[in-house]
């Protein structure tokens, strides 16, 4: 991994425009940290395919653009209506609390009185104005700078977002809906969400990223902090128009005996770059990272998951299932690092891809770096087409070819789906996935 600026993109219009946005912004309580983040970001430059973690995803279309900050006065005060295909994803979901971020800014949320003592919410804009020191520790970028540059840019430029603090087990999921607003396609926004689960607390969180063709580019960051014994089941789902682009970084920091189960699901958009950095900092912390990437049309999905074991007796599991049709491309990068001292760490990585057309491409890369003793690590990656024996078996029982194919694709994804314990969320994701398969109608009747 190179720490030098990428020469090719070093002078790109996008980089220059981001520097201009940076220079124009007003100082605040985090200026020193922001300056350091921006300095590092500018030194790294925009990623190019020469950067290890960006080998398969070309950001030419982004680096050639000139961005502006969203114009003042475009801020939404209420949540916009959702398209039907996105609304389907929320059907049957009965959240304990819902938050909507429009262009990265939270709109006023309903009272949380019923959850007093269990959930607190604050806008980052308020915290920045009043208690910037509370946010400062959460601005640290992941160690892997090459992968983390968008996170650095977010730390430098974010001006709003949400902090959720969970202090006891929550009975139902928290929904965080991220939708585009009036900020146009020429702008870039840097939403940031910080979710803290205090010791012993537990929550299920669904973050739904919705994109449109004409939306601002969202360079979003979510940080999950799990205190001792805390549990979080986190879903991030990307949905929306083919022209939408998502750059999302998810940082997870886990203290002793905490448990994080994470599901990343790419269902829509033209470009989805979903980065995940899990830091198992406390003894006995457990992390599961599961991803489902559905490539269709010309979509590019690039999932990078990095789990760093930094304490004894930590465990991590990464499961990635990718399907690709049309001329889509899905990249699954999964990396485990076991740092010195993380004895008895255990990790499992399983990346599997299924190609559904000639022109599609899947690149699956599990990586492993071990610097400690007594560790158990297993990994595997396979990519193939529909199994002809399975297909023939189903056809020989009279099933339509389209149905048989859909059924097999769905079965292939089931490994990840069955792990989703949030019932409503799982059903909604299943429905949305099925909707992208050739014989959706019959398949719905199967369940």
């Amino acid at each position, binding site marked *: 991994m190179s720490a030098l600026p990428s020469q090719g993109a070093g002078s790109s219009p996008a980089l220059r425009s981001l520097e201009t946005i940076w220079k124009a912004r007003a100082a605040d309580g985090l200026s020193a940290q922001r300056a350091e983040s921006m300095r590092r970001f500018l030194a790294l430059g925009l990623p190019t395919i020469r950067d290890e973690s960006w080998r398969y995803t070309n950001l030419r279309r982004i680096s050639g653009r000139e961005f502006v900050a969203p114009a003042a006065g475009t801020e939404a005060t209420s949540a916009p209506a959702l398209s039907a295909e996105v609304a389907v994803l929320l059907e049957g979901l009965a959240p304990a609390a819902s938050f909507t971020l429009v262009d990265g800014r939270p709109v006023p949320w309903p009272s949380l009185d019923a959850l007093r003592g269990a959930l607190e919410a604050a806008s980052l804009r308020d915290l920045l104005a009043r208690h910037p020191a509370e946010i400062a520790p959460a601005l640290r970028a992941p160690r892997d700078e090459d992968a983390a540059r968008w996170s650095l840019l977010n730390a430098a430029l974010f001006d709003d977002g949400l902090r959720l603090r969970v202090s006891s087990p929550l009975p139902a999921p928290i929904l965080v809906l991220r939708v585009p607003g009036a900020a146009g396609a020429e702008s870039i926004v840097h939403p940031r969400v910080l979710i803290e689960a205090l010791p012993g607390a537990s929550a299920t969180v669904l973050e739904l990223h919705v994109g449109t063709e004409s939306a601002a580019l969202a360079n979003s960051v979510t940080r999950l902090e799990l205190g001792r014994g805390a549990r979080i089941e986190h879903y991030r789902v990307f949905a929306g128009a083919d022209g939408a682009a998502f750059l999302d970084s998810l940082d997870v920091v886990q203290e002793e005996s905490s448990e994080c189960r994470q599901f990343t699901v790419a269902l829509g958009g033209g470009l989805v770059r979903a980065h995940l950095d899990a830091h198992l900092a406390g003894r006995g912390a457990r992390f599961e990272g599961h991803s489902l990437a559905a490539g269709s049309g010309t979509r590019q999905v690039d999932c990078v998951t990095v789990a760093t074991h930094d304490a004894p007796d930590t465990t991590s599991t990464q499961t990635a299932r990718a399907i690709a049709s049309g001329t889509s491309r899905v990249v699954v990068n999964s990396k485990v690092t076991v740092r010195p001292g993380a004895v008895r760490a255990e990790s499992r990585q399983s990346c599997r891809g299924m190609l559904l057309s000639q022109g599609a491409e899947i690149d699956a890369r599990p990586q492993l770096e071990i610097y400690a003793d007594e560790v158990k690590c297993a990994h595997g990656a396979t990519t193939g087409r529909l199994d002809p024996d399975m297909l*023939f*078996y189903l*056809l*020989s*029982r*009279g*099933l339509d*070819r389209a149905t048989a194919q859909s059924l097999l694709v769905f079965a292939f994804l089931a490994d990840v789906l069955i792990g989703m314990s949030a019932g409503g969320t799982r059903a909604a994701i299943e429905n949305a996935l099925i909707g992208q398969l050739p014989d959706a109608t019959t398949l719905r009747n*199967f369940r």
Partner: protein
Amino acid sequence: MLSIVDLQARIAGKTILNGIDLEVRPGEVHAIMGPNGSGKSTLAQVLAGREEYEVTAGRVDFDGRDLLAMPAEERARAGLFLGFQYPVEIPGVNNVYLLKAALNAKRRAAGQPEVDAYEFLALVREKMRIMQMNESFLSRGVNEGFSGGEKKRNEILQMLVLEPKLAILDETDSGLDIDALKVVAQGVNTLRHPERAVVLVTHYQRLLDYVVPDHVHVLARGRIIKSGDRSLALELERRGYDWLLESKVA
């Protein structure tokens, strides 16, 4: 019901079937025997519509229709059933869903409405009793984690639910202990009916003690080299195949 004339087929450039002629009438049970590599399984797969095999000559008439012109799924809906020698495991696809989808595909093709959920379960339970299968099979993935014997029972269960006109059972007896063999044979006998026919592909005559065939054929090098009644199977059991192969070469 099934009329095969001079059927020739190959895979990856290698000819396996060298001109098969076979006539199966309603109500009959035929046994096709033969040494390893004689083309028994290929014949079963070609009849079921496996696309990897290329039919190079001949014709097959099934119930008045040109079987070779139909894709696999259409053959199934028309009433042809293949019991696989090695049933594939399909994790994530539920057994009961597959059974229901298969039955409904057949019913739709026959212009019948989809099966009522209650009736369907009653039907499946009845057939499972015949096959001495535990109800937990239904909620598992297709053949997932099944033992060899369980997979074969599951094939026969599917056959009983679908009630095909013609069942081709490819070495359904292989790998079964004697108790499982009896259960499978009982399942096959349940299907026997003046309107239906069964083709048993088998290595050994053991199954034929329980499912008594009307006709026995010996397949070798892609051709039927001898046909007879049940006594042929008993003779093969005693003498093996070599005497037939030698006399054919001579």
